[in-house]
């Protein structure tokens, strides 16, 4: 198995904004991410970083260029094959947590396993183990609305981890949280990266949060504006 997890080559994405009019969100982005890296993606709004994250998360496919994850080219995959990749290799952590409101925490965490075809008993066992790991085993029977935002995000991380993915994609995971809770969540993600070698790609606006990563990728106008270490980027005194 290659140590390269993500291999993006000249990624382009154009949207049709009207008849005969096309809007380029990505205009040729190339980079690679090795296993166990921790990458922060920054950039002004409208720069194309959301589009990039959607493609990296196999929620969307590029209009041009190549993207391979774990050595698989996703360019020609069907919707169901993409769903399979998302299920097995990617864990999502969203800004808005995106837990299912009518389901208790254990079932929320177990849900990806349902789509992996794993039996009910095993699903519950693994979900409980994950809740234990994020320190919320005692709340397994609660609904998301009964716990705090920071706790919800920890449940979301447990859900992202339950299928033992090789990549965690976190889209502004601390955007809805206060500074203290943000620190806890980032500590959790950093720990996963350091202890288990899970690759983390993190989108953020905040330089503080970006500092948890080692590498920084800055997207400007659909192109890569900077690709290097975080300290180097901030050391130059540039603004995020």
């Amino acid at each position, binding site marked *: 198995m290659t140590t390269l997890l993500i291999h993006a080559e000249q990624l382009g994405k154009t949207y049709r904004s009207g008849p005969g009019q096309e809007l380029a969100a990505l205009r040729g982005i190339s980079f690679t991410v090795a296993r166990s890296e921790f990458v922060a993606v920054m950039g002004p709004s409208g720069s194309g970083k959301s589009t990039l994250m959607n493609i990296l998360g196999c*929620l969307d496919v590029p209009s041009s260029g190549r993207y391979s994850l774990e050595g698989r080219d996703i360019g020609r995959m069907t919707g169901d094959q993409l*769903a*399979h990749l998302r299920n097995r290799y990617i864990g999502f952590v969203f800004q808005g947590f995106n837990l299912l409101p*009518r389901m208790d925490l254990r079932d929320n965490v177990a849900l990806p396993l349902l789509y992996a075809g794993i039996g009910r008993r095993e699903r519950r066992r693994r979900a409980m183990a994950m809740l234990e790991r994020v320190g919320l085993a005692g709340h397994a029977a609660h609904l998301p609305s009964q716990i705090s935002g920071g706790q919800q995000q920890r449940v979301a991380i447990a859900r992202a981890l339950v299928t033992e993915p090789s990549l965690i994609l976190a889209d502004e995971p601390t955007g809805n949280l206060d500074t203290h809770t943000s620190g806890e969540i980032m500590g959790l993600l950093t720990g996963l990266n350091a202890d288990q070698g899970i690759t983390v790609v993190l989108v953020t606006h905040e330089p503080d949060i970006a500092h948890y990563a080692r590498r920084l990728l800055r997207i400007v106008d659909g192109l890569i504006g900077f690709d290097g270490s975080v300290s180097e980027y901030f050391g130059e005194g540039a603004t995020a």
Partner: protein
Amino acid sequence: MRATAIAGEALAAMGANRLRTFLTMLGMIIGVGAVILMLAIGQGAQAMVEDSIASMGANLFIVLSGSSTSGGQRMGFGSAPTLTLNDAQAMAELPEIQAVAPVTSNAAPLVYAGNNWSTQVNGTTPAYLEVRDWAVSGGAPFSAADVRSGARVLLLGQTVVNNLFGDEDPVGKTVRVKNSPFLVVGVLAAKGQSLDGRDQDDTVLVPVSTASRQLFGNQFPGMVRFIMVRAKSAEVMARAAVKLNDLLRQRHRIRDGQDDDFSVRDLTALAETAAGATRVMSMMLGAIASVSLVVGGIGIMNIMLVSVTERTREIGIRMAIGARRRDILLQFLLEAVLISLVGSLIGAAIGVAGAWAVARFAEMPVVVTLWSALLAFGVAAGVGIFFGYYPALKAADLRPIEALRFQ
């Protein structure tokens, strides 16, 4: 494994919004209940008519004598004595005819021990039993010899037996009819109601000669009120009708252009018409009730469409964590099908209970058949799939990024 887990998700979604699920189900409950109840009532009526037809006898004609005129008033068929025993004998010789029974009848009181009962006494021949497909449940029918000699013997209908004898066996006993003693030689098997609701078992059969000579003192000897004729098969009915008509015109010396002094009626055709009418009614009831099934189905589609829109974000989340298109399709389709199946089960129970209540309290005949229940059930499942498919397809065809962005 996956499919059962997804069925669990569908059930959980139904349970999460119980009131809405129940109200959606109500359409199917009412629809299926109505179909089963209406079919039960329709088929009950149909069964009753068919029983009556079967009890009447097959391929039957009744020949009535013509009308008499009294003081300028025409009295209607059967009032003029134009049919004779000889007419009956001549009819029996036609090749299409299987059996002929002349009948002369009148009401008369019967007495046995301390009981009395007035009923219709029919003077006829042994052929009557063959014409009417009527069996003797005890004793034996009277014979042709009894008819020739004018013997005082009689056959009792079941209702008469019940009223005069109770549990006693009447065969061999003596009954007084208009004060003359008659020997009971047999008991007629029970036949039940006729098409027009009369009790066919409230009757007594005596030899036609005995009836006209001794009981009713007919002023025109050899005359009868009507003649019942049984054709050999359904196919020869039309030809037999024409031949009976020609025969009687010839025997009664009716010239061309003169009106018949008799009337030949095809009872079987009349009965078939009645049966056809109840069949149509039965189908109409079913068809009207099925409209409510379709309405119920549209209700399901409506709610499922609302539900898909409301749960767009949920669908996006499920897709992001690995649900395939067919997983989403299956979940929403199962939800619709489960709603309609559970609804139709409840509806079937209510329909059957309703049919029972109608039979019990309205005393109408109802027949709940397995096929009507299966039909309603099958239609309900079909309705669920048909009306659930479009909303489910809408859910499955959502694009994950757009669904996730949905607020």
